[in-house]
């Protein structure tokens, strides 16, 4: 034990292994890289200095053989992560879901907030062509094509694309159909990527993103290489390979077995098993997914606000978070977007109050109430949460009958049918949540919340230039929802990713689908 020689021998062994690993890495990467830096990985890691080189393999649950690299057709997390590696948007969301300039260097509205001038930064596509205003207009027109079905189409709806034009190569003028103070949210919308003008094929995609295309097999893998000319600086990694493993246990095994260095979407149970054991690093991205129930406000029993309030008071949020999310999350307060910009954090945290719930139900003449709760294994924790809520409701004298439906068609099934259903949502700005789900004309208004005064408040906010005044309007809208809305939001789930201990630079604050999530150009291996 005290023999210094054995310590020496061990160190010699470690050094040999390290060198061998570095050599192997250089070999697999098929690239010389900067060997001077990779020779001593330990020091660099300790100092926290990013270093260059290496291949990162990242495992995501995927979409199978039907996958495409068309960034506008992105639907899944893996699509978004791949699109982010190859392409850029004009803007993207920061950790608080406020838009951050990307290809757009800056944006300026006119006085009435219905014309926006976007100035592009100097950036180039992978084939060397500069990113111009024409490319932006081409991309947006492709997404918004009346015959098309791209996901971002709804987000681009406020733009009058026929009237919008390129003022010069690096300036776009967007004419809007109505005043829209939160227009930069559109530039950051899911799937609103900029592709080179006249692109129709995505077999060998050309973008302006931090990585360039190398090889793709649908349902299996996408290999991308470092783009040395990236406008924000070249990525540290030589190469990233996205591999698809839909089974969670396979992603974990592959990570533990060293076959991948990054695994997306792990279950809280897995995270707890391996956290702090040194084999893998577990990273929890807070506020990634809102969890709740929808009450249809246009039909009995929920057309009576007192019944909705009673339901708000039935939920024991802590128990739901602990039970359905295995504790990996935080309690909700019946409002979307905890921690995001404009979130009404000043409202008191709602807690279970069965007495008051009973009283409200009695007042509404809804004693011995029976409701059917639609759910399906469409998202983690759905069926579990439904079971837990059923028990909680029983304590207030409400009989909840849980009906488990088909997960593939769940979202359509509950949009117009039923009265009470499980619900989740990924991250998006509070403004988008309101405009997509809570206005009279919203396309996915699952709570059937159609209130003239609420619509007016939203329009008023969008014609308000002053940010403070706008924040006050958002607060009023949220207060209204808190008092009598149809969303019973009991929690916010963490999104769990895990990496090999050699992987550094993974952002731990960014909710899924924001700028710093799955951002492989900022990651390095040491």
């Amino acid at each position: 034990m005290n023999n210094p020689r054995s310590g020496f021998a061990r160190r010699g062994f470690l050094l040999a292994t390290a060198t061998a690993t570095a050599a192997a890495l250089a070999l697999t990467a098929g690239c010389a890289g900067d060997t001077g830096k990779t020779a001593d990985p330990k020091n660099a890691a300790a100092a926290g200095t990013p270093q260059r080189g290496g291949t990162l393999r990242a495992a995501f649950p995927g979409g199978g053989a039907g996958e495409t690299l068309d960034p506008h057709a992105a639907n899944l997390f893996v699509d978004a992560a791949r699109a982010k590696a190859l392409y850029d948007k004009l803007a993207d969301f920061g950790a608080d879901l406020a838009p951050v300039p990307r290809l757009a260097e800056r944006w300026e509205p006119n006085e009435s907030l219905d014309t926006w001038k976007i100035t592009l930064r100097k950036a180039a596509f992978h084939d060397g062509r500069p990113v111009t205003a024409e490319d932006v207009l081409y991309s947006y027109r492709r997404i918004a094509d009346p015959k098309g079905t791209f996901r971002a189409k709804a987000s681009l709806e406020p733009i009058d694309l026929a009237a919008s034009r390129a003022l010069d190569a690096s300036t776009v003028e967007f004419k809007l159909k109505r005043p829209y103070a939160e227009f930069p949210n559109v530039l950051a919308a899911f799937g609103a990527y900029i592709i080179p003008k006249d692109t129709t094929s995505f077999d060998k995609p050309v973008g302006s993103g931090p990585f360039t295309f190398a090889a793709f097999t649908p349902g299996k893998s996408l290999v991308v290489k470092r783009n040395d000319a990236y406008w924000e600086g070249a990525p540290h990694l030589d190469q990233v390979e996205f591999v698809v493993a839909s089974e969670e246990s396979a992603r974990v095994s592959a990570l533990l077995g060293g076959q991948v260095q990054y695994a997306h979407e792990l279950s809280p149970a897995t995270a707890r098993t391996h956290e702090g054991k040194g084999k893998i690093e577990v990273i929890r991205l807070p506020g990634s997914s809102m969890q709740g129930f929808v009450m249809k406000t246009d039909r009995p029993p929920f057309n009576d606000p007192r019944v909705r309030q009673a339901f708000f008071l039935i939920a024991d949020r802590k128990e739901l978070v602990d039970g359905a999310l295995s504790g990996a999350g935080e309690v909700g307060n019946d409002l979307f977007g905890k921690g995001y910009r404009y979130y009404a954090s000043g409202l008191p945290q709602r807690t279970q109050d069965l007495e008051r719930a009973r009283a409200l139900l009695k007042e509404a003449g809804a004693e011995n109430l029976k409701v059917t709760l639609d759910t399906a294994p469409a998202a983690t924790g759905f069926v579990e949460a439904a079971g837990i809520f059923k028990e909680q409701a029983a304590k207030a004298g409400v009989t909840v009958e849980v009906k488990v439906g088909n997960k593939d068609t769940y979202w359509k099934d509950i949009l117009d049918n039923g009265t009470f259903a499980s619900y989740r949502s990924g991250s998006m700005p509070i403004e988008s949540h309101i405009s997509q789900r809570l206005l009279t004309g919203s396309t996915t208004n699952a709570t059937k919340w159609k209130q003239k005064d609420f619509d007016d408040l939203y329009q008023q906010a969008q014609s308000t230039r002053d940010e403070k005044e706008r924040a006050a309007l958002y607060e009023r809208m949220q207060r209204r929802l808190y008092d009598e809305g149809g969303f019973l939001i009991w929690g916010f789930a963490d999104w769990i990713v895990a990496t090999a201990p050699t992987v550094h630079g993974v952002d731990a604050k960014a909710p899924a689908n924001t700028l710093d999530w799955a951002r492989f150009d900022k990651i390095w291996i040491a």
Partner: protein
Amino acid sequence: MDRVTLHLHWVGRRLLLGLGQTAAVVLFVFALTEALPGDAAVALAGDQPDPERIARIRAALDLDRPTAERFLDWAAGLLHGDLGTSLVSGRPVSGYLAGGLGPTVLLASATLVVLLPLSAGLGVLCARREGGPLDRTLSALTLAVHSVPEFALGVLLATVFGLWLGWLPPTAVGADPLTDPAVLVLPVLVLISRPVCTISRLVRAGMIDAMASPYVAQALRYGVGGGRVRWAHALPNALAPAAQQLARTCDWLLSGVIVVEALFVIPGLGTVLIDAVAARDVPVVQGMAVVFGVVTVLANLGADLVARRFAPRAEVVA
């Protein structure tokens, strides 16, 4: 001569029957996919079920045409060898099949190569030591393994051999099985775990019956050596029921590998099928049904031929 024509006649009849069976399977699958709740447009819309968007997708995919019309179109294409295009990606279905077939066939053949000698050998061994400690131990073991679900066994093997001992890769993620065959070891182990139990037990039972039969006693009386009687006379008879079980195993290998493929990340036919069903990608599901149907028919035909060859008296049954 007469016997050969009779034989060809029989094969022809079997093939015709098989063709009919395949057509029936396809029709059945089409009906079933139509009966599933929701269509590709709904599945594609996911958690953004904007009704207008769903309607547009539906129109773009020609899903608004009547079922019968779509089926006839598809069947007509099939007669020209055209399996149609995927609703999700717009790529040809044949490409999906070709992509998924490689890994699955590789996995299935590797399984069969290990499975056949292993189960025959185990069966004969047990039959020789009927009632002995070895026979009892192997019987108990095969029964125990047979009752473990593939999923559990797969996780267990991956954990023990892949993660604890580090002998084998725990998954096949991102690897090419052709250049890196080690990734196939654990999946093959899981795949043979059940069939080896059933087939070896069938061989064992068949061997015991055959060894007790009058013709074996006769052969022994004529002074034919024990080994020769066992391998050349008794085993072929014992293999006839096992061959039919093997045909069933082949069907199962093609479709039943789904669990194994998911567990070890092998992007084969099972994975393609699961994804296609989830996406309501009907043309792909139908293409798979055709392939599975044809393989099933061919495997069973082969099994019947083998059974006829080994034990011609079984002909009356076929």
